């Protein structure tokens, strides 16, 4: 395989606290190609922090260290903010969970998409407007001309999320980090948003890091899955094999979900083991 889009080795995110250092991410390594990589874990497992660390969004007193963090062979670890801003958006982009909190409430949708495009690609308003309309079309928004002039509170949650994606895609990034992009959405809208991201990976050869707590969703949607627990990757496997996961944590998570097709009287409850925090499953096969 040629150089991966993103290569991360031994990534740690540390916060100094009164009771000593707290490590939110402890030695995460992975490589991302032009694929859909799922990162799954519960709250506090470090999955979102991993995404933020890649984008250089961990604020002091948080510290990011790694043996390697490279974007197409070029190190992006702890770049000065000025250089990081050039990468952010144009080469790596992030879609957050809730469009309500991520869009600027006092700026029209069109202006926000145009701003994000002009910031990275330059060009005049006319070109930016054309691009913005094109992006809204790409995320299948009907009547984009009208939507351009609306404010975020005037659109639904699903539409807001699609607008976010349009905005992130305007500068044509190579990597999209999507942090729970569909958790705030209804099932039917969720399908649409996933289809859009799927198309982008296929058509533009983008790499997607899909952060989610929803195992079933990730199993269906992604190519490969990393399962995180207490800041570490405890298991990495092809998504289609998720239901044959070997780590007891992954198995426990899968079992604790109610299922329509297999009713049970009581749901099995996850019994957490101390060894999951440190023990290796066994050397992970390279995928």
């Amino acid at each position: 395989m040629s150089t991966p889009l993103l290569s991360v080795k031994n990534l740690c995110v540390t916060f100094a606290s009164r009771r000593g250092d707290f490590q939110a991410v402890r030695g995460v390594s992975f490589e991302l190609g032009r694929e859909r990589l799922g990162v799954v874990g519960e709250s506090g497992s470090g999955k979102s922090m991993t995404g933020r660390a890649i984008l250089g969004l961990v604020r002091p007193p948080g510290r990011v260290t790694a043996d390697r963090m490279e974007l197409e062979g070029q190190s992006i670890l702890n770049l000065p903010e000025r250089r990081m801003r050039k990468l952010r958006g144009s080469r790596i982009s992030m879609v957050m969970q809730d469009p309500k909190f991520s869009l600027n409430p006092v700026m029209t949708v069109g202006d926000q998409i145009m701003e994000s495009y002009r910031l990275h690609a330059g060009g005049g308003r006319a070109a930016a407007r054309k691009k913005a309309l094109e992006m809204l079309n790409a995320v299948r928004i009907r009547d984009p001309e009208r939507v351009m002039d609306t404010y975020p509170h005037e659109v639904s949650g699903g539409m807001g999320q699609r607008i976010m994606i349009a905005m992130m895609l305007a500068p044509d990034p190579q990597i999209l980090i999507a942090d729970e992009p569909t958790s705030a959405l209804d099932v039917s809208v969720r399908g649409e948003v996933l289809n859009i991201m799927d198309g982008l990976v296929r058509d533009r050869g983008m790499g997607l890091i899909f952060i989610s707590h929803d195992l079933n969703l990730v199993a269906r949607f992604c190519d490969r899955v990393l399962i995180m627990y207490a800041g570490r990757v405890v298991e990495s496997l092809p998504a289609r094999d998720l239901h044959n996961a070997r780590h007891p944590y992954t198995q426990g998570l899968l079992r604790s979900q109610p299922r329509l097709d297999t009713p049970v009287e009581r749901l099995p409850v996850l019994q957490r083991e101390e060894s999951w925090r440190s023990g290796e499953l066994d050397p992970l096969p390279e995928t």
Partner: protein
Amino acid sequence: MLNVSDLDVWFGDPPDRVDAVRGAAFSVAQGESFGLVGESGSGKSTILRAIAGLIDSWSGQIEVDGRQIEGARRDRGFYKTVQMVFQDPYASLHPRHSVDAVLSEALRLQGMGDIDRRITRLLEDVGLGKGFRFRYPHQLSGGQRQRVAIARALAAEPRLLLLDEPTSALDVSVQAEILNLLKELREEHGLTYVMVSHDLAVVGHICDRLAVMQQGEIVEIMSVDALRRGAGEQDYTRHLIAASQ
């Protein structure tokens, strides 16, 4: 236990009036567990809030335990019968009230005596030990907070619990614990549940029957067995089931 008929709920005045619920009708028997499912904006939570007395702009009939309810005024007897658990345990507990303060306030409001013993009992009921009594919400995990919220609802010794997405803010492993707890409590205390959820699998686990809502109307009332078979009569129901498999 609960009879709802011709229920309309609206917000605002014409010309900006929004009809959130139109002509909803269902009844829930004593000891039954009934689910309300639908997408956001379908009106499922609105029905729950109208029953609980959190909305006054409604018309139709709501009958709880044989008694008609009007407007948003509820007497003390109502809250002895009906209690509600909200979606977000981070928002529904006062950040500066300890568990002890939350529960003793609820008990005192219901005119209960012997508060000390009852708090210990409530904490045991929801699977929290005595050690949690003097903690504050920020010292609790999401699942523990939801347990406190459930304990607060149980303080009145109600017979009908209104559950508004009680596990959707929780991780799946914690969700499993809370769902198990809700099942046990229903058996032990002979409770009746009305649960709102967007997650069909969760409703399938807890409920016996459910109503499917779309754009303010109940489009179908079905048994959980039918839900498991995917046997919705309406296209919309089948679409929802397919999307959540």
